[in-house]
């Protein structure tokens, strides 16, 4: 487990997402914004492509391994200002929580309290291989945290449970546009083959 930064958390929020490109591989992006949504740091990875052996031997745990341990943990190690909370919109990326000390939450817009969390990739968050808690409603959002760190939910409620000035799903769009720009894939807009992981 990587310890991650140990300096005092800043009044900022981290946003982690992963994109897949059919040809190039998997890209990770991490954006740190201040309380008004302005960017403080941005880190993105080079594309990662699992080999055939990994695909066979990791089986269903491949994505949590790649998104969480490989990409997520690598990105979160880079931040100069550790945030009190990292949000992700990628179901397998929640596995990063096992490798960092920062609370991590999977977030989506919730239709109503108690409904299942529909993530942007169409998966049901309750199917996070047993790693995720049941979806909880926090403000307008549905939130899932790692089973082994259920107390992360209190951090989520504290930070985004009240009035939040920014749309917490919007920064993921910025990350995707920036990854596309940085990797020169399809200009600044995500191209069709690129999908949310």
């Amino acid at each position, binding site marked *: 487990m990587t310890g991650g930064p140990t300096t005092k958390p800043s009044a900022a929020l981290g946003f982690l997402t992963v994109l897949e490109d059919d040809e190039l591989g998997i890209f990770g992006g991490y954006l740190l914004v201040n309380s008004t949504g302005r960017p403080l740091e941005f880190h993105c990875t080079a594309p990662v492509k699992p080999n055939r*052996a990994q695909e066979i031997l990791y089986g269903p745990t491949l994505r949590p391994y790649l998104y969480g341990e490989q990409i997520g943990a690598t990105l979160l190690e880079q931040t100069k200002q550790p945030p009190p909370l990292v949000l992700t919109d990628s179901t397998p990326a929640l596995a990063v929580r096992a490798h960092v000390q920062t609370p991590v939450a999977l977030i989506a817009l919730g239709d109503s309290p108690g409904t299942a969390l529909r993530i942007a990739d169409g998966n049901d968050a309750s199917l996070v291989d047993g790693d995720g808690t049941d979806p909880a409603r926090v403000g307008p959002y549905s939130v899932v945290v790692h089973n082994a760190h259920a107390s992360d939910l209190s951090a989520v409620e504290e930070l985004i449970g009240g009035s939040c000035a920014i749309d917490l799903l919007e920064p993921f769009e910025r990350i995707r546009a*920036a990854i596309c720009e940085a990797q020169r894939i399809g200009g600044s807009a995500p191209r069709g083959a690129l999908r949310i992981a």
Partner: protein
Amino acid sequence: MRGPSVTSWQAATSAQPIAPIEVEIVAAVAQTGWGMAVRRPPKVVVTSPDVVSPRPGTVSLPLAASKIPVTHFRFDVAGFAAPEVSDSLSATGPPTARSTKILSADGLSAAARKATRIRPPDDVVRLEDRLSYLLQPPLEELLASGHLSLACQPFGYQLEGIAFLFPRQHAVLADEMGLGKTMQAIVAMRLLFHQRQVRRALIVCPKPLVTNWQRELEMWAPEIPAVVIEGAQERRQWQWETQDTGVMIANYELVVRDRQEIAAVSRPFDLVILDESQRIKNRSSATNQAVRELPRRRSWALTGTPVENSADDLVGIFEFVSPGYLRTGMKPRRIGRAVSDYVLRRTKDKVLTELPPKLFRDAHIELTPDQRESYDLAEKEGVVRLENFGDRLAIQHVLELIVRLKQICNFDTVTRASAKLERLEADLEECAASGRKAIVFSQWVATLDELAQRLERFSPLMFHGRVSSRRREPTIAQFRGDPRHHVLLMSYGAGSVGLNLQFASYVFLFDRWWNPAVEDQAINRAHRIGSAGPVTVTRFVALQTIEERIDQILEEKRELFDLIFSGTRPSRDMHLSQQEIFGLFNLDLDAGGHTKAA
């Protein structure tokens, strides 16, 4: 084959002896050939492995990935702070709390849901710079923050316009009149002030619009001090030299007059905005040359009519925006491609679906008998005179005849009869009866004077070049607020730019301007944001006259505009050539440029 016979015995009993019974059973024997196989011993193969063989080889699969390369970008946290202005210049206090942020029932900002992104222009090449734009929050969120709250919520297309201007060093905002170019430019400039990319900006506009810019700045950027460059030369020189923060507003004539003083300013302006930039379409004009000399880092041009006559108009504007980028003589389609990332052009039809409709009706007027007689005579004599000029005939001679004929189309030279006036009076009766207001445009003050006399019962007000600038605003206020005044008589020159007359429901073009873009500007004074209802535009055209022929030319000019800015129309001869003007009177140019009757 007969089978073997079988003999059976029955057990003996004490009663009587049993006699043997002969039973005949038939049995068949098959040959299987197994006899030899059964007798043959099995073959046993024995393998003796070498129990001391070397250890088997292994294959190691690279399951643990190597360290993933990560690219890092860090940003200035101080961005979008309050702008730096000197206390002495600060004309207004801090912005009032007029936040436009609206929280919806589910707790999410409504502004945040709609995301207008700031995208880097094509000419920004450094990845860090491009990402710094892409990673900014949507404009809605930036503007909803405390320092940048706006007087009212902009339309979506206006936010797009702001997002277009903000990252650009070179830009032309060419929205159709009435879409709010001024507001978009001010808010984009304000963002730059707050990001400290701009500390000192200059706005150059036509003189009648200076007060309009002051008013708009106060509304959309109240915390940024604005000063008008005016007064005697010594005062102006002092202003040019000492104003080192905030916004300066100057009219075109002053910029031409103060060329030397401006050139002597030690530090370039961070931003220069040219309003109504069609003023500099002529590259050889003194105005064009003066604004090109303005020391500056960013150059923005605002115009509703980037092309009035030919594609070279845009070349003139680009000599300020991005000198040398366009050349005269470039094909319109090529210009269209070249400027696509620099020019933003929207029309009301495309972006303001909620704007009331603009209804056009062409009033084709038969001249009165008096007018017809005068007109025919004037044209006949005029053409003869033109022909008599022979080689000395100049375009000016033709234009003089056109003016004379158009004036007859308005009023007969002798009897002052006017078929247009008769029609106008009928329309105005209806307009006044319904309590609505109308604007009547003409290119001649004399025509407006005569209309004022003949339309006295409608209490017309006058707004033209001879009305002093001091009287103009009160005239507009009177027209707006006094229900007795139903008609405003305006000249194209005075009423075509920068005025908001959206309370008028009717626009009459008593005579036609040469340029459809100028006509459009005039019409859009009434048809703009805030219009309470549909605007009806009546264009008078006297049948079988020079007006009808000019109307055809105007239509062709409209097509030229569409060719450059939409690229959808087929190519046409875009230049209003001397030949075409001569053609209005069936005059022709021979190969040597001499005229002859066609």
